[in-house]
């Protein structure tokens, strides 16, 4: 088995998703090559070479890869993929956008969002917002897979000594052009990787009230999350949405505050180790998933909780 893992990075750093994807690769077993495609991203390749269990790093450094435009990266991946038995990317918006384009060009049926490796050709994946788990076996010669990062342990970032090989290939396809990104800068931990998440829903009622969640998050060194309804209402930016169609998280502690617990939301957080819910409706479905539930008005409970943490 020889596995190509596509690194997710921002040209200066590897993102956490890369380490979990490598965790899945290790479970499949075999020689692991990590592809760093970007621009002026030599430092990323250096870091990649240190990762435990990475046998080789491929560095594809060129202007067309400055931003992860799928059309530009696809031809590089098509030419590389045929040398491997598996190609893996994280099931983040980066991997979800890119890998199906590669799969179609290779005439391969991709396996999305795997949650477990059963064998080299058989994988488990959630369907119906995680309300069922399908075990699927692929008959394609190359397996193209996106990995649900919360389901695989991250590999260690040090302990490896892989060689870095620079490669050519791929070019500006002249199709999509990157214009810009409106990034939400935050000093808080990354939602996908945070040990604690404080998430709010429509029950928070306003962007103003969401500040209470920010205070709580900062006390706990937690990331901020939200339900779709809270994002739709403009309380908080889209990149905080947790759920079937948002981010999937599995922190040690997840606070669901003013969130009813719709299946689409549960799909994104039910693997959290401990779930705490605060909701004024004692019948709210979220209480069926919560380890600790508090029936209360969040606008009263939050200031109390913040104060109690100071004691």
């Amino acid at each position, binding site marked *: 088995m020889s596995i190509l893992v596509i690194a997710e990075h921002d040209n200066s750093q590897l993102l956490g998703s890369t380490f979990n994807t490598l965790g899945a690769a290790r479970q499949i077993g075999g020689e692991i090559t990590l592809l760093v495609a970007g621009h002026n991203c030599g430092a990323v390749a250096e870091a990649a070479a240190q990762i435990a269990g990475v046998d080789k790093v491929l560095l594809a450094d060129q202007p067309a890869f400055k931003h992860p435009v*799928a*059309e530009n990266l696809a031809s590089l991946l098509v030419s590389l993929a045929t040398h491997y038995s598996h190609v893996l990317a994280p099931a983040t*918006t980066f991997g*979800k*956008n*890119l*890998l*199906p*384009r590669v*799969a*179609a*060009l290779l*005439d391969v*049926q991709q396996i*999305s*969002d795997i949650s477990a490796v059963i064998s080299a050709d058989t994988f488990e994946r*959630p*369907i*119906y917002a*995680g*309300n*069922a*788990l*399908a*075990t*699927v*076996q*692929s*008959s*394609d010669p190359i397996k193209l897979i996106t990995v649900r990062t919360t389901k695989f342990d991250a590999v260690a970032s040090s302990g490896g000594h892989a060689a870095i090989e620079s490669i050519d290939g791929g070019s500006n396809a002249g*199709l999509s*052009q*990157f*214009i810009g*990104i*409106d*990034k*939400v800068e935050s000093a808080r931990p990354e939602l996908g990787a945070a040990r604690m998440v404080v998430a709010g829903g429509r029950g928070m009622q306003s962007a103003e009230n969401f500040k209470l969640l920010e205070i709580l998050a900062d006390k*706990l060194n937690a990331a901020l999350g939200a339900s*779709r309804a809270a*994002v739709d209402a403009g309380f908080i*930016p*889209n*990149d905080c949405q947790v759920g*079937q*169609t948002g981010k999937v998280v599995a922190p040690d*502690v997840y606070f669901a505050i003013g969130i009813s617990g719709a299946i*689409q939301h549960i799909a994104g957080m039910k693997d959290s180790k401990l*779930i*705490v819910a605060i909701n004024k409706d004692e019948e709210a479905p979220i209480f*069926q*998933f919560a380890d*600790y*539930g*508090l*029936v209360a008005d969040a606008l009263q*409970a939050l200031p109390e*909780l913040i104060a*109690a*943490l100071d004691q």
Partner: protein
Amino acid sequence: MKVMVPIKRVIDYNVNIRVKTDGSGVETANVKMSMNPFDEIAVEQAIRLKEAGQAEDIIAVSIGVAKCQETLRTALAMGADRAILVQTETPTEPLAVAKLLKALVAQEQPQLVILGKQAIDDDCNQTGQMLAALLGWAQGTFISALNLDGQTLEVTREVDGGLETLRLPAPAVLTVDLRLNQPRYASLPNIMKAKRKPLTTLTPDDLGVDISPRLTTLKVAEPPQRQAGIKVSSVAELVDKLRNEAKVIS
């Protein structure tokens, strides 16, 4: 421009799905079926382009069993002009769907194909990207805003880091996210009118596409259930539990 909108018939998002006891799949008999919610948004977007004078012909397409006609009628009632059903009893994978759509694009020559970002049954999130690849077109995925100016599209994409803007040349494939728009309901007169709009039926063979699955589903199981925990009666009790029982805060 002509716009094609592929729509999938799926179990309604409000239904609590049940896994079949023999582990062969999910129970679909006597279950409410609807248009995939993302596809409603795609249809709505196409209609808005038409209302803005930027699109003239909207073709809704579905691949699946005969009952998909109902879903196509819903799209027609919303405002699509005509519909095509590619009828098959074989469950289709995204690659097969993308190949069928490619053949339909060759036939119908749309300049824009707008899909949902994800079907809420298989949760694959692949078909639009695959279709764009097979056509050699630009792809704008997970979009929450669209600006069409002549032959150039500017899209806002919901990505993990925030909101990304891309400029795409037409023809292009778009996949839509939830915040792009709020789909309309079909009015009764429009539901009546939709019954007379053209709906053609084809088969995968007519299009010369092999749709044999590449994946075999060995089993479908229920996920492990989470046990509900306890209710605490006050913030003080909650903090005590977090500190002394779960030991997650100091």
